[in-house]
């Protein structure tokens, strides 16, 4: 059968991926370079029985999607750095109340208003640590238009399977590039739904660990009456002061994500088989890195690229292995050093790690990446 191939912009692919994944509610507040996602969903959601609403700010947007998800609709919002900062408190709320939602952050350059139309990768750590306290973090980092489509689906699936917020983190270049995308047929990519309770309302507890680390989730309005609070709570959902319960609930919401790593983790490994230099990068920087690696090989340097597609949880284990086979690792990022810290933690000094950073609003060029690789291995 002939494949459906479309020329899409990154943000368009994200919006279509969301609908494919079953997203039926979007709340957002316009911000460059993410606004097209809202614009497209404003038109397409009503056609599939979903709802769109433009809220008064990002504080409201994240709150609305959590509410809608609790009432049973797969929900999403999309923003950029300034809005992402505003959402942090309620991302933590979704973590502790275990309500699945998807948050897209199309990164721009700089802190504060920064560079609204320029790419940046300054929110790597915010995606992990932006909200207060210990909490789980799941983040997908697509590097192409096609992957923005599929990673948005994977984000919804992970959110539903794990009952946790999932962030899709990309940059202005991926969001605004137009590329050919093969659109899968319905059913071609599996779509996951949250596990519904198998017990009746009388026996239902919203955080019942009897069923494992991801407790089944009832929706408001399905005949189950329960309490949801951002206060630390026991299995029945009500606040508790019991140290043992607090500790075990807190550890469980982190553990459920750690235990998912075998299916949740995803990396791209480009020409790493015989590589002596590995370049680590995500998003559009990784695309330049792949070009640079090819160029470096032409110049006689065995270069390869390691790209975390699931950025959080970070692929520590795989990088540790990689440290055994390469001589050097270069971490390239459009920030002043965020991923590099994680890479250093993974390799524990077993191999030299250097970084190439750029925060001038321009993408890191393949040329500068290539010379870093070539220069590195020269005596």
């Amino acid at each position, binding site marked *: 059968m002939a494949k459906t191939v479309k020329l899409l912009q990154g943000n368009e692919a994200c919006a279509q991926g969301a609908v494919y994944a079953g997203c*039926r*509610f979007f*709340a957002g507040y316009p911000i460059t370079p993410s606004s097209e996602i809202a614009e497209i969903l404003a038109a397409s959601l*009503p*056609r599939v029985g979903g*709802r769109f*609403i433009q*809220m*008064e*700010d990002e*504080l*409201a*947007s994240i*709150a*609305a*999607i*959590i*509410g*809608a*998800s*609790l*009432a*049973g*609709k797969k*929900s999403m919002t999309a923003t950029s750095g300034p809005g992402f900062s505003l959402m942090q*408190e*309620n991302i933590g*709320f979704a973590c502790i109340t275990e309500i699945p939602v998807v948050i897209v952050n199309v990164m721009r350059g700089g802190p504060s208003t920064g560079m609204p139309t320029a790419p940046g990768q300054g929110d790597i750590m915010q995606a992990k640590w932006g909200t207060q306290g210990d909490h789980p973090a799941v983040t997908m980092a697509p590097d192409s238009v096609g992957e923005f489509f599929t990673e948005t689906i994977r984000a919804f699936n992970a959110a539903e399977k794990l009952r946790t917020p999932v962030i899709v983190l990309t940059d202005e270049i991926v969001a605004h590039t137009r590329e050919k995308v093969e659109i899968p047929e319905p059913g071609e990519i599996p779509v996951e739904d949250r596990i519904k309770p198998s017990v009746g*309302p009388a026996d239902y507890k919203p955080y019942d660990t009897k069923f494992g680390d991801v407790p089944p989730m009832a929706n*408001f*309005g399905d*005949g*189950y*009456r*329960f*309490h*949801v*609070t*951002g*206060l630390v709570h026991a299995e029945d959902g*009500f*606040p508790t002061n019991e140290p043992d319960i607090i500790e075990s609930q807190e550890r469980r919401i982190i553990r459920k994500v750690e235990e998912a790593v075998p299916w949740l983790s995803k990396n791209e490994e480009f020409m790493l088989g015989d590589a002596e230099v590995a370049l680590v990068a995500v998003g559009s920087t990784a695309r330049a890195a792949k070009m640079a690696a090819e160029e470096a090989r032409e110049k006689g340097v065995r270069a390869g690229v390691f790209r975390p597609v699931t950025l959080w949880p970070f692929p520590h284990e795989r990088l540790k292995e990689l440290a055994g086979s390469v001589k050097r690792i270069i971490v390239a990022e459009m920030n002043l050093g965020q991923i590099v810290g994680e890479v250093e933690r993974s390799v524990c000094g077993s191999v030299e790690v250097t970084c190439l950073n750029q925060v001038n609003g321009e993408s890191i060029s393949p040329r500068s990446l290539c010379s870093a690789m070539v220069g590195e291995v020269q005596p």
Partner: protein
Amino acid sequence: MSFDYTKYLRTEHLPHLWCPGCTHGIVMKSFLRVVDSLGLNQDETVVVSGIGCASRLPGYVDFCTLHTTHGRALPFATGIKLARPELTVVVVSGDGDALAIGGNHFIHACRRNIDLTLIIFNNSVYGMTGGQYSPTTDHGMFSSTTPYGNPDHAFDAGALAMAAGATFVARTTAYHVRQMDKLIGQAVQHSGFSVVEVLEACYTNFGRRNKQLFKSNMDMLMDLKKKAVPVEKARKLAPKEMEGKYETGLLYEVGRPGYIECCDDMIGRKQEG
């Protein structure tokens, strides 16, 4: 026979944390009587709050209950209602929660006119955090952060709601319990965004800092009674005569299609045309 609240209370989670003499419980009981008189289905009734003493209410009542973050109850409720319009969604919020940190959400919820009911538990102070002044603390009053008297002036939540487009606006006090039942009942039945402001008393964190006026929480309740003027009468009085007083009753009601109806209508027309 007296009303049996236990049907609607999570008795295993009582006693509540409210102070003796706190008026939040009066409003909670009024709400439960309304639920009963309207015959609302508990499985299809959602009670949403933010953070504060008033916002602890959802933990005590047996519905689908959601205790959110400070100030954000209305947008959470908006998401729930849009996802499942058939549910009855009631938001309970303190004056700080609804009008300070949640003030922007408040005016936009009024404007959108989504069918939600907001009950503002207005004790004119931040009770939970120990008695700091709020946007509804009267000028000159003492609080833990206005040790020389409040230099600010209070919001008129009802006027704000009307200006922002709410289609049902009412005010009552913790003293006027029968009126409270009636207004909360009408608000829940009203189709569109409805606001009921209940003027309340927090002796623990407000009254005792204003001993020149209040020696007990009873004094505060009597003050609420004294200052309340039924709207029909208030509107005949000169502004001068209303100084230091407030209108109570149904301040405003109008029928206007809300966000959901308008959306469905426009999308339907577009698809037909």
